[in-house]
C-alpha cells in the first residue's frame, strides 16, 4: 500500500452537503413537507439482533410508503438495536430516517456527540423525546439519566445547527444539518396545556411534531383548534400518530401498560364486537387517517404499527393520502420505489 492509497477516502464516503436554500436539513421529509405534500412517516420495530439484514427486514414493509422511518431509541425502556445504528444502515441504503433520541439513557456529552455522528452518517431528521421511565422496561434497575429534557435537547441541537457550537460554547466546524422533531401527546392530561407545551417546543426549536396515538378525534380536533389559535399554523409541521389495533385485548393492554396511550372505550368495543378484530382494527386506522387529514393544520401521519408493520402499505394505500403523489398500492407506484435522503 502506498502512502497515497492510505490517505485516500473510501469510495463510499458521502460528501457532506449543505441543505438547499430555505431548508435546514435537506432531508426528504423536510422537502415533502415544505412542498405542501401530505407526509407519511412510520415506526420501525428495532431488532434484538446485530445482523444488518434484520434491520432491512424490519424496514421492508415500511419503505414503500414512508418518507422517513422512525428508529426508536429503546422505547418503553426496552433494550434493542440502537437508533443511530439503524438510521446509519438505512440512510446508507438511501432511505429517509428519523433518529430518535430519548433523554433517559444518555447525558449531554453523549447526545451532542451522537448528533454529530448521526449527521456524518447521513441522518437528517431527529426526534427529541423525554423517554419513558426505566421502571416500565426490561431492566428497571437501570439508572435513569434525564440530563436533558426534550425541550432543552431541542434547543441544544438547534444551537449546534444554527449557531455552530456545543452547549459549552466550543465551535463546531461543520454543523449538523438536522430537521428537528418533537413529540406531543394531545390526548394526555393536562389536556388544556398540551397546545401550550407544543408552542414551547416550537419555541425551543421544533420544526416538526409527531404525536402519540390519536384514537380520540374530537379531543385531537380541540387540540388542533387551540394550536391554530396560538398562531402555530405554518410554524411547525404536525404529523398525527395512528396505528392499527390487533384486538380488544391488545388495546386494553396498551392502554394500561404503555405510558401516554389513550383509547376511548367506544373504540375498544367496536373492535371487540367485530367478527374479524384485526381487520376492524385496520379499517379503524384507515378511517382515523381519513378523518385526521381533513383537520386544518395536519401535515401528515405517523404510523406506529407495532408487530403489524405488514399492514402499513395497505393502510396508506386504502386511506388514499398518497394518491396525489402517485401511490396506489403495492406494485402500482412509480417514482416512490427509489427514494433518497
Amino acid at each position, binding site marked *: 500500500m502506498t502512502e497515497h492509497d492510505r490517505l485516500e477516502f473510501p469510495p463510499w464516503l458521502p460528501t457532506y452537503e449543505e441543505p438547499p436554500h430555505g431548508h435546514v436539513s435537506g432531508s426528504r421529509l423536510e422537502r415533502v413537507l415544505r412542498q405542501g405534500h401530505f407526509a407519511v412517516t412510520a415506526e420501525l420495530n428495532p431488532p434484538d439482533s446485530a445482523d444488518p439484514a434484520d434491520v432491512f427486514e424490519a424496514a421492508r414493509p415500511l419503505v414503500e410508503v414512508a418518507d422517513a422511518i422512525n428508529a426508536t431509541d429503546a422505547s418503553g425502556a426496552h433494550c434493542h438495536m440502537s437508533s443511530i445504528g439503524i438510521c446509519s444502515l438505512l440512510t446508507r441504503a438511501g432511505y429517509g430516517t428519523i433518529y430518535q433520541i430519548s433523554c433517559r439513557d444518555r447525558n449531554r456529552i453523549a447526545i451532542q456527540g451522537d448528533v454529530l455522528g448521526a449527521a456524518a452518517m447521513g441522518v437528517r431528521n431527529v426526534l427529541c423525546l423525554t423517554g419513558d421511565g426505566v421502571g416500565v422496561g426490561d431492566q428497571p434497575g437501570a439508572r435513569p439519566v434525564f*440530563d436533558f*429534557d426534550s*425541550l432543552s435537547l431541542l*434547543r441544544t441541537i438547534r444551537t449546534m445547527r444554527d449557531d455552530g457550537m456545543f452547549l459549552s460554547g466550543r465551535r463546531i466546524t461543520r454543523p449538523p444539518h438536522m430537521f428537528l422533531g418533537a413529540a406531543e401527546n394531545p390526548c394526555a392530561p*393536562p389536556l388544556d396545556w398540551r397546545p401550550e407545551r407544543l408552542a414551547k417546543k416550537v419555541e425551543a426549536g421544533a420544526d416538526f411534531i409527531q404525536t402519540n396515538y390519536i384514537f380520540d378525534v374530537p379531543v385531537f380536533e380541540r387540540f388542533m383548534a387551540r394550536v391554530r389559535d396560538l398562531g402555530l399554523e405554518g410554524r411547525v409541521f404536525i404529523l398525527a400518530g395512528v396505528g392499527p389495533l390487533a384486538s380488544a385485548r391488545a388495546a386494553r393492554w396498551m392502554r394500561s401498560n404503555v405510558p401516554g396511550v389513550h383509547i376511548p372505550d367506544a373504540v375498544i368495543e367496536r373492535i371487540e364486537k367485530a367478527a374479524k378484530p384485526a381487520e376492524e382494527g385496520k379499517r379503524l386506522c384507515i378511517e382515523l387517517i381519513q378523518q385526521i387529514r381533513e383537520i386544518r393544520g395536519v401535515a401528515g401521519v405517523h404510523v406506529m404499527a407495532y408487530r403489524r408493520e405488514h399492514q402499513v402499505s395497505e393502510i396508506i394505500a386504502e386511506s388514499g393520502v398518497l394518491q396525489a403523489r402517485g401511490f396506489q398500492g403495492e406494485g402500482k407506484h412509480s417514482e416512490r420505489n427509489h427514494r433518497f435522503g
Partner: protein
Amino acid sequence: MYKARLFAVRHARAFEWLYARLESVMVALDPLFARIGYDRIERPVAAVERVTKGLLFDCRMCGQCVLSSTGMSCPMNCPKQLRNGPCGGVRPGGFCEVKPDMHCVWVLAWEQAPRMKGGGKIRDVQPPVDRSLEGSSSWLRVSREKAAQLHESRDARRTAMARAFAGARAHEPAVAPLAQEPASAVRADGGR
C-alpha cells in the same frame, strides 16, 4: 413532605409574593455579601435554604431554583426531573407516570401558573440543570446574578462608547475601557 408541597403549590400566589420580597432583600444585600465574601456565607445560607425549602417544596437543592417559573411546584420532584413541562405519560386524573400515587408536578404547575403574577414565565424554555451546582445556595446565586445584571445595565453606557469609537478602541484600548476598574483606580467623587 408531600402534603406541605401541595399546600405551597395551592398557595402559589402568596409564595410567589414572598419569594419576590426575599429576592429583593437578597439583591439589596449583595454589597454586604460581597464584602463578607460569598464563599464564606455559602454554607450557612445553603443550610438554611435546605431546611426551609425542603420543608415547603421538597427542595432537592439543585442550586438553580425555578420555582417562580413553575407555579411554585418544584420540578426536581418529577422522577424525570423535567424542567420544561409534563412528559407524555401523565395518567388520567393528572397522576405521575412513574409514581402513580403522586400528582404530576407539572400538572400542578400549569394549574397554578395562571393565578400567579409572573405565571407567563412557565412558557420560558429552561436550560438543562448544571449538576455541578447541586447542593449550593440558589438564593445567593440569584443575589449575585441580579446584582451582576444591574452592573451590566450600567456597563451598557460604557459599551456604547466602545462601539461608537470602535476603531480608536481597537488601537488604544485604554480610551474606552470595558474591563472592571479596581476601586483604587476610580475616584469616588467622579473627579469633582
